């Protein structure tokens, strides 16, 4: 599998370059955001002398490139830091310490990532089922009432912000009908069943937002395939409609769905801010918004890199799947 090895290497180099560029961009952009970081960290009532002490503590007075260099050093070689009473080591790859909470950013990420991944993986399954299912049904029942109804529902998902869908779902399902308890995150490792029940509404809310795009994509690709010669031939030879749809037409939708899915999965890891906020899921998105708010640069950079990493990986996986599905494609 020489071809695959080369592909993996190229992808790896590409990913490193991409993540490196992202870290530079984030550093520059957040360096330019207003807000006196030392004052925010210290508290609004801190005296100028105290603020100065905090600025020194966090090396905020160093020029941008020096700070960025320290960041790279930590990433490669790790970093020692003082808790006041002792010296601790943050081993490589060290993303630094949060200005606000003095926690290691890597530890913060490890704590939040399972939540975000739980949310996004589950939602992904749902949006694929909902989206592709709707797409198939509407291609099959093209022009009939079923199609119009399904299209309407998925479009309502696109048209409604997640904080509205989520809140209404929660009020109705948990508050009025009392079908489910109000969601609160339970770790998968603690209790898989509770994990799933508690994440059901967040999954559904997020999936409803994403499903429409998949439905439209699937429908379009299927219609295109259904119109092709070989399908007509199958039909002419009396292959059942179900088989035509299931085996052949659906395969045509495979590639674009994978590509879109990779894209959405990656961006949802850090982009499901509103879902996380509404349902009180302590994930990456929620933490990121908070960190942006208090200009907690190490946390922002660290988390954006992790999110970027997932986008890159998801896209690479999509390319591999695409190639597996379609032998003609050469991995580049």
């Amino acid at each position, binding site marked *: 599998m020489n071809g695959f090895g080369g592909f993996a290497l190229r992808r790896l180099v590409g990913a490193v370059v991409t993540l490196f560029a*992202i870290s530079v961009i984030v550093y520059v952009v957040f360096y330019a955001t207003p807000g006196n970081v030392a004052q925010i960290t210290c508290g609004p009532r801190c005296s100028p002398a105290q603020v100065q002490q905090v600025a020194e503590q966090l090396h905020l007075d160093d020029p941008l490139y020096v700070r960025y260099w320290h960041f790279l050093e930590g990433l490669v070689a790790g970093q020692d830091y003082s808790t006041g009473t002792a010296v601790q080591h943050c081993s490589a790859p060290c993303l630094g310490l949060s200005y606000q909470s003095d926690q290691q950013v890597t530890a913060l990420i490890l704590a939040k990532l399972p939540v975000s991944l739980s949310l996004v993986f589950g939602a992904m399954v749902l949006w694929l089922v909902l989206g592709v299912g709707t797409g198939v049904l509407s291609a099959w029942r093209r022009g009939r009432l079923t199609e119009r109804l399904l299209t309407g529902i998925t479009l309502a998902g696109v048209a*409604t*912000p997640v904080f509205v869908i989520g809140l209404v779902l929660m009020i109705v399902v948990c508050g009025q009908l009392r079908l489910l308890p109000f969601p609160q995150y339970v770790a998968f490792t603690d209790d898989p069943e509770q994990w799933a029940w508690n994440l059901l509404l967040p999954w559904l809310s997020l999936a409803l937002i994403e499903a429409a795009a998949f439905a439209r994509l699937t429908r379009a690709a299927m219609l295109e395939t259904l119109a092709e010669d070989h399908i007509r031939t199958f039909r002419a030879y009396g292959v059942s409609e179900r088989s035509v749809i299931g085996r052949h037409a659906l395969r045509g939708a495979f590639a674009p769905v994978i590509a879109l899915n990779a894209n959405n999965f990656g961006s949802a890891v850090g982009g499901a801010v509103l879902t996380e906020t509404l349902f009180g899921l302590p994930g990456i998105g929620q933490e990121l918004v908070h960190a*942006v708010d208090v200009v907690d640069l190490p946390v922002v950079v660290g988390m954006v890199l992790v999110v970027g990493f997932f986008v890159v990986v998801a*896209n690479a996986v999509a390319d591999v799947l695409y190639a597996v599905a379609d032998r003609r494609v050469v991995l580049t």
Partner: protein
Amino acid sequence: MSAPGASGARQFWRRLRTQRAALVAAAVVALLVLVALAAPLLTAIEGQDPTTYHPSLVDSARGGVPIGSFGGVSADHWLGVEPQTGRDLFARLVYGARVSLGVALAATVVQVVIGVVVGVAAALGNRWVDQLLSRFTDIIVAMPLMIMSLALLAIVPSSFPRPVLVALVIGLIAWGSIAKIVRAQTLTLKELDYVSAARLSGWGSWRIARRELLPGVAAPVITYAALLVPANITVEAALSFLGVGVKPPTPSWGQMLTAADVWYQAAPQYLLLPAGALFVTVLALTVLGDGVRTALDPRAASRLHVGTGRKREAKA
């Protein structure tokens, strides 16, 4: 068989006209745009404006819920008034259409222009150009939209017109997907017979791009853009939710939705109005997008009906 697009605008219109649903959708979109443009006139007819407070129309002791049925609907206030402030909801809805549609359309235009230019250039350029542009696209795609918007919106001075800024920020950050779609589509088209033929007959890259590729790229781009407009409206809403959207007292649908979600139980019409407006917009744009796609890409259309399309050997 002639290349698509060469047949010109007249043919496009003729094909579009044959689709009833698309025509209705086009009418709805036109109406929405008209309402947005005529907002001052419409509110003048109603005799209201979107910013004046009417403290006497809300029940202050009950959190400012509108007095009267259906959220205070009356001859003076056609759609009732906003909780807490008593501002006229009809006026806010039609003025909100200006901002929401304006921001979303402008952002979409920015996304499409950048995406198409980058995508086509990457597909037609040499290896290095392709590598550079594709990497750049990867970087953009890998940046969390919300986070970068939050940061960028905080950096730009507050004197910069906010709706323009929001449109620009959304547009400049979220073009990656279009670029990828366009690049992939262009690469496919490049291999097709008629493009190869054009190249053999000595056409330049630019001419090929303009005459042969863009029309082929247009179909997926328009389909995607029809979904981008509503997505952009909700991004603006999400930015409002996070406190960095268009600034009050300027109304936008996103802002109304944000403010209204907690009122879902106490004053439902406050939530239903912007949500309904948004839904109608999305529906109309999607149906119109489909229609335009069909009209633009007669090969796809003809395949659907007659089955004389190119053969895609890969999928057999």
